[in-house]
């Protein structure tokens, strides 16, 4: 159980900017502090920011709670205070149970040491006893799949092997309370799946998980409850789908829209320049999150700057693993393709059907090109991103199945099913299993 009671964490702005001082700086500071008492009122104003501002919540044993928010909202500071890495300025926290904090994969790893040595060292740093590490050693190595290289210095490991081994140590820590910060942002998809699986297993045995992430898909999948932070304060606390939806729909800094207000600095050349790229749901709203069952539009606006040219827009849909799922081009609209072009702003929208993509985070790359001769006028990767979330309740591709559903796309395909009139062979009705 975790009880967070009116916790505030302040940083002096000076301390955040100039990370550390020198004695030379300290001398005038002391002088100022000494003279300050003769200037009434001078000391009352201090430049502080509240990285955490009066945060209170409670997490029961066996709950998995996601913490979301934009960069600088205080998510990581909260985990650092909970993990006793830094002290709160005000307030109190009570943790009941052994705490394992996983703010980084590979804490305490040393590149010169072998895999075996690092497992022992990292385990000890994360809070395992020597006997415990030795007992779990084989399981850790097996989970990481590095048996053959266990006596090789980890500096020779591939990044995947390194990640697997580092996570394996943390996964076998077995605390009652696990604090995890963005560890899923690294590593390949297989590794991420493994981590998520381990965390799900962890939760299912009644342990408490606090999980900071930018990846809404994994937050929704792992956590029933989500806390939304903004400017150091807790602004929402509730069921995962509701809070994530609120987060993704809030604010203008949406990742689902990108606008270049200034034509001269927008990506492009003398023929065409990008103006805006956005994701709109079927009702026309900017949509950082898209229901897997619903269609949505990828909208691109660009400035056509010359007569006589024939720029065309293409979009790339790229998933989290960097795989381009598809490329589509507005010349598929043959009527538009034949239309003579005038300088001006052009808006084109590409409709992506529902029940077609898999869930997860997707990125859009947008390009403006012309053919004959083939020229690329503008090409921008990761212009906008959005989440495809599977909230289907039996009516989606996955039906009622709640487990992992592989595949880079998830189209609703047609199934023709019929009963063939035939007699069931007699032998199977007698109860024997026949292969």
């Amino acid at each position, binding site marked *: 159980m975790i009880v967070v009671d009116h916790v505030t964490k302040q940083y002096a702005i000076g*301390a955040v900017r100039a990370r550390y001082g020198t*004695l030379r700086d300290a001398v005038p500071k002391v002088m100022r502090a000494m003279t300050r008492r003769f200037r009434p009122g001078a000391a009352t104003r201090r430049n502080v920011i509240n990285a955490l501002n009066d945060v209170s919540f409670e997490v029961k044993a066996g709950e998995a709670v996601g913490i979301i928010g934009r960069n600088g909202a205080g998510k990581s500071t909260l985990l650092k205070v909970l993990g006793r890495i*830094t*002290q709160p300025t005000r307030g109190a926290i009570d*943790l009941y149970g052994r705490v394992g*904090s996983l*703010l*980084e994969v590979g804490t305490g790893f040393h590149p*010169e040491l072998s895999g075996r040595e690092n497992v022992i060292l990292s385990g000890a740093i994360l809070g395992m006893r020597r006997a415990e590490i030795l007992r779990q050693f084989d399981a850790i190595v097996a989970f990481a799949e590095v048996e053959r290289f266990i006596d090789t210095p980890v500096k020779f490991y591939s990044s995947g092997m390194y990640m697997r081994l580092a996570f394996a140590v943390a996964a076998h820590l077995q605390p009652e309370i696990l604090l995890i910060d963005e560890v899923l942002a690294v590593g390949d998809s297989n590794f991420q799946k493994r981590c998520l699986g381990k965390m799900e297993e962890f939760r299912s045995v009644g342990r408490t998980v606090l999980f900071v992430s930018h990846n809404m898909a994994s937050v929704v999948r792992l956590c029933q409850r989500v806390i939304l932070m903004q400017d150091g304060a807790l602004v929402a606390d509730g069921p995962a789908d509701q*809070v994530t939806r609120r987060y993704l729909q809030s604010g203008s800094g949406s990742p689902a829209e990108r606008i270049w207000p200034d034509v001269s600095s927008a990506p492009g050349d003398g023929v065409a320049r990008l103006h805006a790229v956005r994701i709109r749901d079927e009702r026309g709203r900017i949509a950082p999150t898209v229901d897997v069952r619903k269609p949505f539009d990828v909208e691109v606006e660009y400035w056509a700057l010359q007569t006589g040219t024939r720029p065309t827009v293409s979009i790339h849909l790229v998933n989290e693993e960097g795989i381009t799922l598809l490329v589509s081009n507005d010349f598929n609209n043959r009527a538009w393709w034949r239309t003579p072009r005038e300088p001006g702003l052009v808006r084109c929208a590409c409709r992506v059907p529902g029940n077609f993509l898999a869930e997860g985070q997707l990125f859009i790359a947008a390009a403006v090109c012309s053919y004959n001769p083939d020229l690329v006028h503008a090409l921008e990767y990761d212009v906008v991103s959005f989440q495809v979330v599977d909230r289907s309740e039996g009516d989606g591709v996955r039906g009622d199945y709640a487990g992992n559903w592989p595949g880079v796309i998830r189209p609703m395909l047609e199934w023709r099913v019929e009963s063939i009139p035939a007699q069931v062979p007699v032998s199977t009705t007698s109860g024997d299993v026949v292969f």
Partner: protein
Amino acid sequence: MNPTATGPALSARPSASGPQPPAPGEIHIAIRSTRPPLHAELRELWAHRELFYFLAWRDIKVRYKQTVLGIAWAVLQPALTMIVFTLFFGKLARVPSDGVAYPLFAYAGILPWTLMAAGVGASSGSVVGSPNLITKVYFPRMIIPGAAVLSGLVDFLIAAVGLALLMTRYGGHVSWTLVWLVPVVGLILLLAAGVGGFLAAINVKYRDVRYIVPFFMQLWMFATPVIYSASLVPARWRVFLALNPMASYIEAFRAVCFDKPLDWTAIGLSTLVTLAMVMIAVRAFRTVEQTFADYI
């Protein structure tokens, strides 16, 4: 649809009676804005005692990786220093060495001095040198400088082989009384931890420490009878020598090796100075410990 709908409000705070008391045997971690009491911190230190060993072990493992001579450096360094000192101070300057062969005399001073100097050097930079630990995982921070001092002990033990060789060669006093070296070494480690821990704490905020330490250690060495004998110091200056705990520890170290009487007054005084230094260091460390992660 109303985008501000948040679902259930903030979960209710526990009733006035506060959170339920933990089940017996359950771990309870209380995080407060005030500094935890010393006894709680000492208990934490005890709970994490294995980490002293593991961090020291890592330091030693890493120190000699990718070196051709490996751990032989631990003997070579004091041995080469001893040869240089013997040439310049023993042969040329003819520094008196209390009737002991100068090489043995010098080595018996270099050995404890190196233990202390290496300990202070390693621990004063240890906290600043471990940002990945301090910003990512919790454990009592005092373990970091503590382990840095401890890792020098292994070097010392290996270098002690050189002392054993010199003692058989130049006729030192080999008997059971040599076990008195153990408490002397213990006091030296304590002193190194005190000085190093204090500097490590200051170093987090004021990086000047990195430049001060080598200079300071050099001065301290000249103020300590490492290359010369304390008997060389005029009697009226001896009082100042007594304030330097390292002086009496090195004198004691030699006295045990060469079977000479121990100056118990000096040792007692130095022990008090050492304990005071450790207390100052713990106090300084605890004052800034909680802000390490904010400064590194």
